[in-house]
């Protein structure tokens, strides 16, 4: 049984320890200009700041260690996992990777990490042609091999897909494939047209396309697919407003922060507005005094149809999507079909 937390008691950190990557995916929210990376001593200081904050807030921490591709810094990655394994403030962590650098040795080493919940890899479709058109030639086979390698080691594996016109019709087939492969969980993220993904702006789904896709995914999730489909994202709640496992208020400003390789903090990786630096400002000053976070927390500051929506307590749309499409992170979610 995977560790689960009550959202009320959880605080989530997404930590990008590098922006370097051995892939060049078309939809990536990253641009091509990697930022400065912190040495291990400073990474440990960042971790100490997280630990202090979690203890003060009396929250259980969850952490995603990612990049870029985190295995390009495998020494630092394993060193950080070793430390988190012995911090009481963290319940668990995930590693988000493209999977291509996970050797047998790394897979076995991951199995020995005490608080590693899942390894998340990305796959964009059920066929090489769909996936490789986005992630590069040969990456489909590479990802499937890494899923099998991780599963053979007894690790829980999650697959994440970024949805756009390039792959949305294939999502049901992809879920069936993941079922066959014994993948544990599956999640979908909407394409946010920023970074390299800005070039795919014309591939965003229309509101009706997104509605149909979410309805189909929900139907598959509740009707017998073995892979657990994670649907706690804004707009999913529109599909099944009375189901507490479907949809969730965005965690930006509520119970999450993203930390970049140089310590810069964003509300969310997909909402790249710097709100401070962990090492220079400390997490308390950022969390308590960021104008951006306070604006996000205040539903009265929402624009358009989000402001008067009766699902304010469970949705509020995606602020990153609003920002990337309008320049105003409090604007209505342009993909909402209500």
């Amino acid at each position, binding site marked *: 049984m995977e560790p689960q937390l009550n959202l009320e008691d959880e605080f989530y950190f997404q930590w990008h320890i590098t922006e370097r990557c051995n892939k060049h995916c078309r939809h990536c929210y990253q641009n091509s200009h990697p930022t400065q990376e912190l040495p291990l001593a400073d990474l440990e200081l960042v971790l100490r700041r997280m630990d202090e904050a979690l203890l003060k807030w009396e929250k259980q921490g969850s952490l995603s260690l990612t990049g870029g591709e985190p295995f390009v810094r495998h020494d630092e990655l394993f060193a950080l996992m070793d430390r988190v394994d012995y911090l009481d403030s963290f319940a668990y962590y995930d590693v988000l990777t493209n999977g291509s650098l996970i050797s047998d040795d790394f897979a076995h080493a991951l199995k020995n990490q005490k608080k590693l919940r899942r390894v998340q890899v990305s796959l964009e479709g059920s066929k090489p042609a769909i996936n490789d058109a986005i992630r590069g030639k040969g990456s489909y086979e590479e990802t499937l091999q890494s899923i099998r390698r991780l599963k053979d080691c007894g690790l829980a594996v999650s697959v994440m897909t970024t949805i756009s016109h390039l792959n949305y019709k294939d999502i049901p087939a992809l879920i069936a494939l993941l079922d066959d492969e014994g993948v544990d969980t599956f999640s979908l993220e909407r394409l946010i047209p920023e970074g390299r993904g800005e070039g795919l702006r014309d591939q965003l789904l229309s509101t009706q396309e997104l509605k149909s896709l979410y309805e189909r995914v929900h139907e598959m999730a509740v009707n017998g697919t073995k892979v657990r489909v994670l649907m706690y994202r804004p707009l999913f709640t529109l599909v099944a407003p009375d189901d507490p496992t479907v949809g969730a208020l965005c965690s930006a400003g509520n119970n999450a922060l993203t930390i970049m390789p140089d310590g810069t903090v964003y509300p969310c990786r997909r909402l790249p507005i710097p709100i401070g630096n962990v090492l220079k400002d*400390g997490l308390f*000053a950022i969390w*308590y005094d960021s104008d951006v976070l*306070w604006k996000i927390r*205040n539903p009265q500051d929402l624009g358009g149809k989000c402001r008067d929506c009766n699902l304010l307590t469970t949705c509020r749309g995606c602020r990153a999507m609003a920002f990337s499409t309008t320049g105003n992170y409090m604007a209505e979610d342009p993909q909402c079909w209500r």
Partner: protein
Amino acid sequence: MLALKPGVVLVLEPNIVLRSIPDQDWFFAFNVVTGDEFRLNSTSFWILEALGNGAEWIELKGSFLEAFEVVPEQGERDLRELVNDLFEEKLIGRRSNGEEKNEI
């Protein structure tokens, strides 16, 4: 008990920030160094905001009585009690403006 003498200026302690969302009845003070957070009522929040730039007791009392339209004796008692609580929570401190006089 906080001594409120003429010439003593009450100030918001350094590292304290104030944030509110009045529509949600959220009034908070935060210490951005220690991470301590304090959920306040709107009156305590008003006092802290009023002290943001420092104020002598006599000025604070005058604006409090005016803002809350309370009778002077009761208003002053309530204000003293609230100010004392905020002082004990280390949200406010005092500094002298160099004209300190007898305690009131």
